[in-house]
């Protein structure tokens, strides 16, 4: 094999490489190259195929049986991958470890009772309730990674920096604040990744990454939409833009006067021009979004109303509402250019109907805690962005009454919403589940506390000599399937 090497830019530091404690997609992209799962996604799709498992079957809503392939070895001499390792790995999520640390992804395995080990290679996953998203989201995702009990126990804390897996790659060097190198695992037998090594380099600054791509110092990076636009047509560089799977909306705090008044919320919805805001925010590169679940994902409500700007209606609604104009509202937003620009447009649009907007732009960490606890009481208008998950029930959970004071910044307090969301979580019938999800979106629409804006675009740039592989959300990169062309 050729000694090909791939250089990938990462935009955040690698923090923790112990799967139950990993901190985000940067970590998980590495982990999914290092560890095997029972089932794993095929290149570029949410579909999955058998990985470490030779055979796998949902024998009942509450039980999944699996049989492992033989001879899958952990690197570093930690022996063969066994059913006991599967048990160890999955059960780590539901029990605190010796020091009392709990996995941050405990919720993924909330339905797990135990993994029964039948012999070296076979076992059963026992659930407490039906879990429709378990296969796509958990087993094929990062929480389904299989670690070596021996290695974790032997290495202790060091395991979070030196992951021992049985997957196609292994971590051969790791320098904080700099990056990490993946090298091909010679013992991995299923297939041979194209690249001998993958270098992940930490470059926080977008612009630097863009320049480095142009200078051919990196092979692959995510791009801001601006940069993507600019790079289209650049020699030797391929730019890929796709509708994103993050939903962005303008939220209104339903418990704060005058936004507790439905007419006011509706007036605001009527007064803004989503298309113009999206144009300003994303330079015309992002599609408009009309409901929470972006098109293409399970549960998308394709008939959702498409609100057009209607100043007269807005004025009339305001008049009906009984509030005295002008009113002044605070618009809290993250200090990213796209949000800033959308905020400015919203400010201009709303001022025409007598609503003055004060823009309160916040830096990331402050922004993300603005809806927390008591500070959430004071929120008025805000822009928010969430990552969409293939599991629609999961997406809806942030809007539950129980999330008030956490992520339900609009303080949308609907018992019915909570009930339907809960039911959808264990509904194994796909069609009726979709109906439930659409029902949820209708409830959200009725509240008029969320004006959906866009599902963004994601853009990736890479040297034309590279054929990358990544899941449709654009964030989950599949290094083992990257090809050199």
């Amino acid at each position, binding site marked *: 094999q050729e000694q090909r090497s791939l250089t990938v830019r990462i935009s955040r530091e690698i923090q923790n490489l112990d799967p139950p404690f990993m*901190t985000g997609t940067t970590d998980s992209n590495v982990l999914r190259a290092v560890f095997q799962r029972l089932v794993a996604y095929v290149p570029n799709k949410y579909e999955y195929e058998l990985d470490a498992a030779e055979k796998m079957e949902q024998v009942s809503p509450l039980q999944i049986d699996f049989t492992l392939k033989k001879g899958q070895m952990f690197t570093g001499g930690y022996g063969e991958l066994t059913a006991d390792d599967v048990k160890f790995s999955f059960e780590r999520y539901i029990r605190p470890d010796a020091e009392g640390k*709990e996995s941050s992804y405990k919720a993924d395995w909330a339905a797990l009772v135990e993994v029964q080990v039948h012999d070296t290679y076979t076992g059963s996953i026992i659930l407490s309730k039906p879990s429709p998203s378990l296969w796509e989201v958990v087993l094929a995702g990062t929480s389904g990674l299989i670690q070596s009990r021996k290695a974790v126990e032997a290495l202790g804390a060091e395991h979070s920096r030196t992951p021992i897996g049985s997957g196609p790659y292994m971590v051969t060097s790791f320098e*904080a*604040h700099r990056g990490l190198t993946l090298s091909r695992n010679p013992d991995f037998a299923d297939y041979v990744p194209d690249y001998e090594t993958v270098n992940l380099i930490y*470059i926080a*600054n977008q*612009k*630097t990454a863009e320049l480095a791509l142009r200078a051919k*110092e990196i092979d692959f990076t995510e791009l801001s939409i601006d940069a993507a636009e600019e790079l289209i047509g650049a020699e030797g560089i391929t730019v890929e833009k796709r509708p994103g799977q993050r939903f962005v909306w303008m939220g209104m705090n339903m418990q704060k006067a005058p936004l507790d008044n439905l007419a006011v919320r509706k007036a605001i919805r009527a007064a803004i021009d989503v298309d113009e805001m999206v144009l300003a925010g994303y330079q015309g590169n992002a599609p408009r979004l009309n409901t929470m679940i972006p098109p293409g994902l399970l549960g998308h409500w394709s008939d959702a109303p498409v609100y057009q700007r209607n100043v007269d209606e807005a004025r009339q609604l305001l008049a009906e509402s009984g509030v005295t104009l002008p009113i002044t509202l605070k618009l809290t937003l993250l200090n990213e250019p796209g949000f800033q620009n959308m905020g400015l447009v919203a400010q201009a649009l709303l001022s025409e109907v007598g609503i003055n907007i004060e823009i309160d732009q916040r830096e990331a960490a402050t922004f993300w805690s603005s809806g927390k606890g008591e500070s959430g009481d004071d929120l008025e208008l805000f822009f928010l962005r969430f990552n969409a998950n293939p599991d629609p029930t999961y997406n809806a959970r942030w809007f539950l009454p129980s999330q008030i004071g956490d992520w339900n910044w609009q303080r949308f307090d609907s018992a019915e919403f909570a009930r339907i969301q809960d039911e959808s979580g264990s509904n194994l019938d796909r069609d009726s589940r979709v109906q439930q999800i659409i029902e949820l979106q209708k409830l959200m629409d009725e509240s008029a506390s969320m004006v959906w804006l866009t599902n963004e675009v994601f853009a990736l740039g890479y040297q034309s000599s590279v054929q990358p592989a990544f899941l449709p959300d654009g964030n989950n990169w599949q290094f083992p399937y990257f090809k050199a062309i």
Partner: protein
Amino acid sequence: MLVIVVLLNMVPGDPATALLGPMATPEYAQRFIAEMGLDQPIYVRLWKFFSQVAVGNLGTDVISGRSVNAIVWNALPHTFALALASMGLACLIGIPAGVYGAVHKGSIGDTLMAMVSVVFVSVPSFILGIFLLIVFSVMLNWLPVLGVSDNATLGDHLVRMILPTVALALGWIGLIARLVRTSMLEALGQNYVRTARAYGLRENMIHYKYALKNAVIPTLAIIGMGIGRLLGGAVLIEIIFARQGLGSVLYDALQARNFSVLQGSVFVVVVIFVVVNLLTELSYSFFDPRIRYNRR
């Protein structure tokens, strides 16, 4: 120091949400909050931190599980290399430029240099860095964009140091040139220079030996004080050139509300400042014998 740590501890936001945004579950956030001791009152946190520092332990980074000592020690050499290189470059160019300006006061060269140095001093280093990148890396393609290399040959390291060093040094060149020029003018007006002239010493000798040594002393003080500014500049430069270093550790830690790392690295920065100022004082006595014999 204390003030800064207190201030930093008052920064709102918690590491979990800062890291994960909406993905953070309450349990997840709670874990960090407890481990960083953020649920405890501020004096307890301070006491814990300083009692650990007293035994040389800056604490543990809860998020990655590494010791803060290791993180800081890893970053320091890079920042030092950058700071030293740009300081060196700045002195190498700034001092002769300042002497030239003072000796040829009012000449076109002096005026031009004054203007250029003013621009260098005041335009933030990140803008200079960006322009350097555009010109040398993208347009001319002479130098690499990234400030550090992976295939760690010394040559490659050096080549990659050039742009960050220059970007950081430019401001200092301007500053040093201006300072040296001012204190050279002061020195050149002194009686001992008149004496040296009266005894026919060559102008070069007067400028570079007799006057410069006197002129360096006030310059040193400013350089010592300016180490804070240098680190501030380094933060931005490290971000732009994707270099690791203390600046980016500090910045990332603040961004991520990683208080344990933040406190530790702030502490180290303050210690560095104190040490540098001590060294500056020591180097005074190298340049200024008056301090040496008065101490005796």
